C-alpha cells in the first residue's frame, strides 16, 4: 500500500511539474482573443504615452475610462498631451497602478477614475483577465509576483495555454499581435488609447434593460472604510506621485442611472469615498452624484458609456480639470 501512495505522490508531482513547465514555456504568448485584445490595448497605450516627451495627462482606471473618456478631445481642448490608460476592471488595482508608474513622468497629471468594486477587492486579486494578461504579455510582472500568486496563476491557467508554444509559436504570435494592433487601430482605438467603437447605434439595449433593475451593493462592503487595502494603495500612489511632482486628481466613474445606486445609503457611500480621496490630498474633479447617465448614453454595461455619453462626460471633466491643469503646467 505504501508503494501505491508513493505512486500517487509521484504522479501528482510529475503532473504538477509538467503543467508548470508548459505554462512557463508559454509565457508571453497570448492565448485567447481577449488576451490578445488586452495586450494590444496596453501596447498602443504605452507606445502613445512613451512617445510624448513633455508633461502629459494620464487617465487611469478600468474600462469606465476606456469607454467613457476621450483623451484626444482633452488634448485638443487643453492643448496638453493626454493618454487614455483605461483598460479593464478585471485587472487588480496594484497592477493598474504599477503599469501607470511605468509611463508617468515628472510634472504629469494623473486622473484616477476607479470602478467602485476596487474599493472592496484585494489589491492583487488573481482574476482570469489578470492571469491572461500577465501570462500573455507581462512576463516580467509574473516573475516579480509572490510565489503564492505565481502558483495561483500557473495552476489556474486554462489547459489550452499548455499547447500554445507548439500550436502558435513565438514568432507567429508576434505577427498575430501586429495584425491585432493594426486592426484595432483601424476600427476600435485612436492613437491616444480612446475606444471609438462604442457607437450609440450599437449599444446593447437588452443588457442595459436587464441591468436597470440590478443592485450592485458596493455600499454593503467595508470599501469606504479607511483601512481597506484600496486606500492604502491610493495613499502609496499619492506619496509616489508627490515625490515626482505629479499632480493626482480623482474623477468619479460613469454609472448607469438606476434606483439602487440612487438610494441614500449608496449616495452616502459615494460621498464618504470622495471625502477619503480629498483627505489623502487627491482633489475630486467630478463626483458620483453628477455622473449617473441614462440608458440612452450607455453602451453595454453598468460602467460603459457610448460615444455620445463619453463626449458629455469628457466635457464635464474638461470643465473641472482645465483651471487646475493649466495652473499645474504653468508651475512646472
Amino acid at each position: 500500500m505504501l508503494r501505491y501512495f508513493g505512486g500517487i505522490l509521484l504522479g501528482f508531482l510529475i503532473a504538477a511539474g509538467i503543467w508548470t513547465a508548459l505554462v512557463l514555456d508559454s509565457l508571453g504568448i497570448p492565448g485567447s482573443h481577449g488576451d490578445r485584445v488586452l495586450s494590444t490595448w496596453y501596447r498602443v497605450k504605452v507606445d502613445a504615452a512613451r512617445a510624448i516627451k513633455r508633461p502629459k495627462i494620464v487617465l487611469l482606471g478600468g474600462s469606465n475610462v476606456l469607454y467613457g473618456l476621450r483623451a484626444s478631445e482633452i488634448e485638443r481642448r487643453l492643448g496638453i498631451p493626454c493618454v487614455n490608460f483605461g483598460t479593464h476592471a478585471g485587472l487588480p488595482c496594484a497592477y493598474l497602478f504599477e503599469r501607470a508608474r511605468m509611463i508617468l513622468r515628472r510634472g504629469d497629471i494623473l486622473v484616477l477614475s476607479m470602478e467602485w468594486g476596487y474599493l472592496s477587492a484585494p489589491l492583487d486579486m488573481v482574476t482570469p483577465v489578470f492571469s491572461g494578461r500577465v501570462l500573455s504579455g507581462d512576463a516580467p510582472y509574473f516573475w516579480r509576483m509572490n510565489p503564492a500568486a505565481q502558483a495561483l496563476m500557473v495552476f489556474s491557467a486554462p489547459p489550452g495555454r499548455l499547447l500554445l508554444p507548439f500550436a502558435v509559436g513565438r514568432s507567429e504570435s508576434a505577427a498575430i499581435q501586429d495584425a491585432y494592433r493594426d486592426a484595432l487601430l483601424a476600427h476600435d482605438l485612436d492613437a491616444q488609447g480612446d475606444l471609438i467603437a462604442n457607437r450609440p447605434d450599437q449599444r446593447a439595449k437588452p443588457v442595459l434593460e436587464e441591468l436597470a433593475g440590478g443592485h450592485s451593493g458596493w455600499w454593503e462592503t467595508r470599501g469606504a472604510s479607511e483601512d481597506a487595502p484600496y486606500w492604502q494603495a491610493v495613499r502609496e500612489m499619492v506619496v509616489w506621485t508627490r515625490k515626482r511632482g505629479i499632480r493626482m486628481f480623482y474623477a468619479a466613474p460613469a454609472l448607469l442611472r438606476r434606483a439602487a445606486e440612487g438610494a441614500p445609503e449608496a449616495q452616502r457611500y459615494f460621498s464618504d469615498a470622495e471625502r477619503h480621496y480629498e483627505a489623502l490630498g487627491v482633489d475630486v474633479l467630478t463626483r458620483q452624484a453628477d455622473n449617473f447617465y441614462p440608458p440612452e448614453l450607455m453602451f453595454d454595461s453598468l460602467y460603459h458609456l457610448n460615444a455620445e455619453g463619453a463626449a458629455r462626460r469628457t466635457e464635464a471633466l474638461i470643465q473641472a480639470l482645465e483651471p487646475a491643469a493649466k495652473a499645474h503646467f504653468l508651475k512646472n
Partner: protein
Amino acid sequence: MLFHSIIFLFGFLPLTWGVFRLLAAVHRERAAMGWIVLMSLVFYGYWNPAYLLLIIGSIGVNYSIGSRIGPADGVGSAAVRRWLLYAGLAFNLGLLGYYKYANFFIDSFNAVSGLSFNFTHVILPLGISFFTFQKIAYLIDAYSGRTGRYTLLEYAFFVTFFPQLIAGPIVQHSQIIPQLEDPKTFRFRPIDIGVGLTIFAIGLFKKMVLADGSAIYVGPVFDAAVQGHALSVGAAWGGALAYTFQLYFDFSGYSDMAIGLARLFGIKLPINFDAPYRATSIVEFWRRWHITLSRFLRNFLYIPLGGNRHGILIRYRNLLVTMLLGGLWHGAGWTFVLWGGLHGAYLIVNHAFDAILPRRLASSLSGSSLARLAGWALTFLAVVVAWVFFRARDLSSASHLLATMFGGSSGASPVTLDSPWLWLAAVGVVAFAFPSTHDYLSRFTPVLDPPPERSRYMGIAWQPTFFHGLAIGLLVFLIFRKYFVLQPTEFLYFNF
C-alpha cells in the same frame, strides 16, 4: 458541508476518521458508532443547525414506531400495528410534503383556480427526499417483520451516516446495520484506505473536472432558452448533451465519493450507477441509473401497486404512476413530472416492443451488434430529450430548446456561446468507453450487490501498485488544479 470543500477534506474528515479509528482500535465499537452519529449530525447541522431538530425528531419518531410494529413486538393487535404504520408513513410523507411540495401544490392550485393563497416560503431541508425514503422502507420492513432488534444507536447510524445522508445512495437498514454488527467492520485494514481514497478521488474528479467542466456549456444555452433567444441547432444540442454529461458525472461522482468515504470507515454502500449511458434500452437504463432509487420505487411503489401481476394495462398504468411520482420526487415542478411521465412512456413502449417482438427475432436481435448499436443510440437520444425537461426552468423554455434541436434554428442568436464539441467528445469517451468506477475497482468489491465482473476491464483493474498510484496521482493533480480555478459548486442532487 460539501465533500469537496476544504473544511471537509482537511478538517471534518481527518478528525472524524481519526477518532473513529482510535475508538475502534481500543474496541469501543459502540462509542465509535456514537462518534459517527455525532459527527454526521455536525455535518448536517453545518448547513442549517435549525434542521437538526427535524432530523433528530424524525429519527426518534420512526425508531419508536418501528420498534413497536413488528409482528413479534406484541404491542397490540394487528390493527393497532397497522394504524401505527400508517401514522409513521403519514408522519414521513407529511414532513416531505410540507417541506418539499407545499409551495408547489399551492402555486399550482392558485394557477388553476385563479385564487391567490399565500404560504410561507419553506426552505427544503438537505437530503429530506433521501432519508425520508430510507425511513419509510424501514417502517414497512419493520411492520412485515423483516427488521432485526436494532438499537437506537444502530438505527441512528443507518439514517445519519454522513457519506450517504445528503444525496444517497438510498440505503436499506438490511444493508447497513448487519455490517455494524460484524466486528470486522471496525478492524483497521489498509486496503479499505486504498480502495476508499481511490473511489473518493475518482468521484471528486468526476464532480470537479468533468461535471463542472460540462456545466459551463449548459447554463448559457438554457438561460438563452428562458429568454426566448434564438439558438442554432448545434448550440441547442451542445447544451442538452453537456447537461446530459454534467448530471451523470455530478451525481455518479457524488455517489462514488459517498461509497469511497464509507469504505474508509469499513462500510460498504450499494452501487448507484453502472455506466448508464451504455444502456441499449430504457429498461436497462433504469437498471443502471440511480439504482438505489429505482430499487426503492420498484419495491415500495410499483410492486405494491400490483406490479406486472394484473395484466398488461395495469402494468403499464403502474409503470406510468411510478415514474410520474419518481419525477415528482426529484423536484416540485411540472418539468420534473413531465420528465417522469416521459420515462414512464418510454418504459411502456420498451415493454410493449418486447411483448410484441417474436421470441426468436428478439434473441437474434440481442446478439446483433447493429441492433445493439441502434438500441443504444435510440436509448441515449430518448434520455437526452428527457433531460431537457429535467434541466429547463419551465415548460416553455424546454419546448423552445427541443423545437430548435429537432426543428432547426429560428434565427440568428444574439448570444455568443463557446463551442462544446471538443469537450463533449472527451467526456463522451469517458462515459461510453472507460471502465466505471466499480469496474475499475472490481477486484476489491467496492460496493454491495456489484454487477458481474466485465472481463474486458480486468486487465486494467485497480490494484494497490505503484503504477496505479501514478495514474490516480494525475487525477489528484487535475482535481487540485480546479481549486485554483473555481469555487466549489453544490451537487445537483442536493436539490432533490
